[in-house]
């Protein structure tokens, strides 16, 4: 465990706290996609130091050259948008989304599984699928008209960043289905016990 002289380690432990439902079984599907989701989440974490660098360079340019670049300002929110969208799937995979578990932590594991099943089928999946469904025409339209930034000197290929709305929610759907199979296995699969 954490050394007393490394308080950062305590925060690590807190943020990677255990799953709300302990010992959720793996399934063939979750074994296939969960490592991919986790890998994407970790790789996308590199966006934050890049964002720090872009902001710093832009501020420096404003004071050294007397003006910042519109491209640099736009690239900032491009990076941030991609970052928080990709993070969603990883958060589902490692159960990082906030729960109010004052009562729920005392539920039996089976009850927790039923709540999880209900939440995913009635709330999360319909929500995600609705966004995916309506994001297709949204991205396609941007692609068709060759949309670029409204700002002079702004970035081209606006559909590309818009496409991450679609990509992020598709990944979220995949992570949800993976967790769904695990909860279903916990509830109904007696073969492994």
């Amino acid at each position, binding site marked *: 465990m954490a050394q007393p002289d490394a308080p*950062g380690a305590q*925060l690590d432990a807190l943020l990677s706290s255990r799953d709300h439902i302990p010992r959720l079984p793996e399934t063939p599907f979750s074994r296939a996609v969960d490592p991919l989701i986790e890998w994407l989440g970790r790789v996308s974490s590199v966006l934050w130091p890049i964002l720090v660098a872009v902001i710093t360079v832009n501020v420096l340019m404003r004071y050294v050259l007397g003006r910042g670049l519109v491209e640099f300002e736009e690239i900032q929110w491009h990076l941030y948008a991609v970052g928080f969208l*990709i993070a969603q799937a990883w958060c589902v995979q490692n159960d990082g*989304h*906030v729960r*109010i578990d004052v009562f729920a932590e005392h539920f039996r594991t089976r009850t927790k599984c039923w709540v999880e099943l209900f939440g995913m089928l009635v709330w999360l999946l319909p*929500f995600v699928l609705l966004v995916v469904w309506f994001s297709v025409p949204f991205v396609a339209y941007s692609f068709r008209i060759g949309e670029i930034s409204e700002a002079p000197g702004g970035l081209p290929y606006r559909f590309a960043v818009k496409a991450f709305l679609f990509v992020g929610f598709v990944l979220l759907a995949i992570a949800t289905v993976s967790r769904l199979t695990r909860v279903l296995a916990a509830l109904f699969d007696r073969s492994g016990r």
Partner: protein
Amino acid sequence: MEYGQILAILMFLSFIALLFLGYPVAWTLGGLAISFTAIAWISDTLFDTFVGVDWAFTSGIVDRIWDTMKNWVLVALPMFIYMGIMLDKSGMAEQMMESFVKLYGRLRGGMALVVCNIGVLLAASTGVVAASVTLLAVLALPAMLNLKYDKGFAAGTVGAVGTLGILIPPSIMLVLMADRLSLSAGDLFMGAFIPGMLLGALYIVFIVIYAWLKPEVGPVPPNREPITFKVIWGVVRAAVPAFLLILAVLGSIFFGIATPTEASGIGALGAVLLAAINGRLSWKVLKDTGYETTKTTGMIFGIFLGATAFSLVLRGLGGDDVVEKGLKALPFGPDGIVIAVLFFVFILGFFLDWIEITLIILPLIGPVVKDLGFDLVWFCVVMAVVLQSSFLTPPVGFTLFYLKGVAPPEVTTRDIYRGIMPFVAIIAATTVVVFLWKDLVLWLPSVAYK
């Protein structure tokens, strides 16, 4: 009352009730948006009602998410988070701890004062409560318990002071509030500065008086060093990095040199440099900071996505009318209505945390409060003070969870609840002061950027 408005009320009530199932808050919000769209759509098609919320209406969520994606101000959020987590690992707080202890060691409740001082400095350099509460708890709680401090007093001090980070700018909560009400994040930062410092000062006053009246809660350590010039010099040196960061982030916003977004990036860079100077910057620290930033950002924006959908549908059902009519029908004057709102927020804070209240409640009541003739910057700051309590009031409070997560096992939940109570009372008192004396908020923004 119209059918749609009844649905709106039902939607809100079912949110509060269903939260306790323990399913993630983000998707409970997003899911209820879908459920109530379905209910409205079915009753419009089958029973000839005229709610007007259907799938085409709710598809507007895609545009709302896009608005969030291209929102340049919100870029500051992951940057402040990155800064907070990096600062947590940079060793800055440990150095302050070592030298501050020597300065305050001779006083009753000295360790609590050390926690307060470091907490306020941390709060003014960053704004992530998870980072500051865990840091203070790990650094100071074991030491305080060794000195036979009262467990509740020790835990309460750490929790309340660690929570100051979300009120004293820079703060991710103020960035979110500014975004929801289209205010300037810089104005809110400036507005919250004096009330935040006032709250910190009142904590210190409380600790001094309490430890003086009841010496057994904060005993003086037996082997104390005399205060020499060297000790004071050590304190100054240890506080320099924090002051430099505060100057870089808050100073550049205050003097109009940088926007809050730029300041957040510069602050994050400062935290990285500080870690490097202290020899703490390793590949592992860089990686972990990145991962934790992604996780924390993902968690906050998950709620953001869900709350955006929830608010869209709630408004579509006429929820904003319900709130406006309901508030204006209260038999009080404008002041009374705002007091009622704040009291309501305080009560909600027992069950919800700041993110939901900021994202869902604030946009509903903000326009009404403005209509009544109040300054929204002032109102946001008063609400930010009240929301301090949402971290600290059981059963649902982030700070309580963090404390329980990292405190030594002999500190019980009861100790934490007991210790936190006087601090909640101080928050209430500060709310009253800021409510009565609006200049505490409005003076600084009026002289900044000149």
